[in-house]
Structure formats: structure tokens, C-alpha cells
């Protein structure tokens, strides 16, 4: 292609770029990066902290006493232990993936590593959402039998002969709440990462298309 030869000639002339001084390079290398990896790291740490805080805040003493009262304390101890172990492994995997992000890799590998890091956080969020889901179900069952107001409503419904209908309504209400929470989270993350990773995804797809 003739035109490309022309471009190449001009390219090799090494034309006059405004030269950056040593002092400026020194100054620049100490500036804060605004790369997406930096953002991904910051957001992920906030996410880890958020869910951890939620776990700690929800674990108040009154709740513990209540669990003891319901006879669930033994089970909750194990659930919590497993939960913390899972949390620690997530943080470990996230950190390990983050460390493997290297600008000296091939473009394809670099993109893969970034997406892998994000996936780890994504799994962490899904894990937490499923814990929320299980918690809600547990709360639903426990409330049904131990909350005096609800259980008297159940008793009344049983006496009036529409126990099944009451249970159906009760379950529907809880499911609606859970679905609402999950959809909200999903939208939030879709938006957050959609904006952040739009360019990366587009370029990743393009690169994969070439290599099909």
C-alpha cells in the first residue's frame, strides 16, 4: 500500500515531539496513576470492607442471645467460622490475582489477568448475596414459629382454614424482598463496572475476534 509507505517515511523521520526533561520524568513517575487497575483495586477493597462491616454489624449480642433462645447458636458458630474462612480465602485470591497484573505481559494476558481479578470480587459478592438469601430464608422460618405476632396470625389462619394461603402469602413477601435486593445489587454492579471496564471489554473482544 503506497500510502502506508509514505506514512512510514514520515514516521521514521522521528519528527519533532516536544521533549520531556529528566526533571519532568522524575516528577511524572511519582504522580498517582489513574489507570483502571487502580480503580478496580480501590473499589474492590471498599467492597470487601462493606461486606465485612455488614457481617460484624449484624452480629450484635442481642441477636446472639436470640439465637441461643432459638437453639441455633451451635449452628451459627460453625456458619460464622466457615464464613470467615471463605472471606479470608477470597481476600487471598484477590490479592494474588492483583499481584499477577503486569504491564509487561502480552496485551491478551494482561486483559485476562485484570478480568480474573474482577471475577474474584464478583464471586465474593455473589457469595455474600447467597448468604443474605440463606439468612432471609432462615429468618423467615424462625420468625414464623418464634415471633408471637406472626405465629398467632398463623394460628388464626389455620383456625379459619386458610393456612396454606397464609403461608403462600408470607413466602411470596419474603421472596419479593430478596429478589428486590439482588436486582438492586446487580444493577449497581452492572453500572459501576460497566463504566469502568467498557473500553477494556471492547478491546478484549476485538482481540479475541482476531484470534478466532
Amino acid at each position, binding site marked *: 500500500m503506497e500510502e502506508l509507505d509514505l506514512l512510514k517515511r514520515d514516521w521514521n523521520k522521528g519528527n519533532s515531539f516536544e521533549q520531556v526533561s529528566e526533571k519532568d520524568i522524575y516528577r511524572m513517575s511519582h504522580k*498517582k496513576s489513574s489507570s*483502571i487497575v487502580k480503580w478496580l483495586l480501590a473499589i474492590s477493597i471498599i467492597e470487601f470492607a462493606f461486606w465485612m462491616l455488614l457481617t460484624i454489624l449484624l452480629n450484635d449480642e442481642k441477636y446472639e442471645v436470640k439465637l441461643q433462645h432459638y437453639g441455633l447458636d451451635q449452628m451459627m458458630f460453625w456458619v460464622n467460622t466457615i464464613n470467615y474462612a471463605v472471606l479470608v480465602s477470597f481476600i487471598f485470591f484477590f490479592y494474588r490475582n492483583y499481584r499477577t497484573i*503486569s*504491564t509487561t505481559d502480552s496485551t491478551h494476558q494482561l486483559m485476562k489477568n485484570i478480568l480474573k481479578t474482577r471475577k474474584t470480587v464478583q464471586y465474593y459478592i455473589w457469595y455474600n448475596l447467597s448468604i443474605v438469601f440463606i439468612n432471609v430464608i432462615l429468618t423467615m422460618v424462625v420468625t414464623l414459629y418464634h415471633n408471637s405476632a406472626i405465629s398467632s396470625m398463623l394460628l388464626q389462619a389455620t383456625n379459619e382454614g386458610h393456612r396454606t394461603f397464609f403461608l403462600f402469602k408470607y413466602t411470596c413477601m419474603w421472596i419479593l424482598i430478596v429478589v428486590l435486593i439482588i436486582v438492586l445489587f446487580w444493577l449497581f454492579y452492572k453500572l459501576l463496572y460497566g463504566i469502568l471496564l467498557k473500553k477494556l471489554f471492547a478491546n478484549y473482544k476485538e482481540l479475541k475476534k482476531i*484470534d478466532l
Partner: protein
Amino acid sequence: MDPELEQLFVKQLKENQNIIHKICRLYTSGEDAHKDLFQEITIQLWKAFPKFRGDSKFSTWAYRVALNTAITLYRKSTRSVQTSSFDTTNHFIRQEEYNYEEEEQIKLLYNAVYQLNDIEKALIFMYLEDKDYQEISETLGISEVNARVKMNRIKTKLKKILNP
């Protein structure tokens, strides 16, 4: 940080800065965006420098990091600028009658390259830098054959942009 290492880095980058400027030229339009990307590349280079072992030339190592920064990490969107530059290019092309001065044609060529996507720009960059297909495939992480095929497609695409 090791001051000696830093001195070495600054010196090497100063000597090899043109290759970074060339990448900034392909990926940005406007002086501010150019400087912005140059700075982000410098940050990434400095961060990766301790791992630079010198088994390749500094310039080779640097252009890889620079390309990866431009394609993958750089966050500032240049989309709005891109549209305006696209319009002017179209305007130029419509008047084109193959009797342009060389300089004018070179400007058109740069504009055409600017319209390519980020991956295509990387391929053109390496083509202009006379990199062989083995190096191109290693840099992008695609197969050599596919790099060749894609390069031919880009040439066709450029031709189409220049002669719509």
C-alpha cells in the same frame, strides 16, 4: 525507592521518549490528552521498571508497557474528540483528488489511522516500527498467522477510509 535505579530509569526514558510520544500520537488527539497518556505510561513504566531485567532493549520493553497502558489501562475517554476529528477527515476526503501536497496527505493518513480501533492502532504502530510478526504476536498475545491476516485487513480498511 533506590535512587540509583530511578536515575537510570529517568535517563533511559528520556533517551527513548520518542517511542512513547509516537504511541501517544496514535492514541490521543490534542496536546492535553497526549501529555496525560504520556504521564500514565511513565507511571506504569516506573512501576514495572524493577522487573525490567535487560534481556530485551529498553525501547522494546517500554513500547510494550506503553501499548498495554494505552489499550488496557488508560481510562480517559477520547470518544468525543474522536468524533470531531472523524468529521473533519470526511470533509477532507470528499475534496480529495489525488493532487495533494505530500504533507497534506500525511495528515490525512494520520487521521485515518486515528479512526482505527485500539487494537488496530497497535498493529499499525508495530508495522510502522518494522516489528516482525513474531514480535507482534508476542506483544498482543495472538497467533502469528492471525496477526498477519489482521494486518492485511487493516490495510484494506485504511484504503477504504482514505478512498470512500
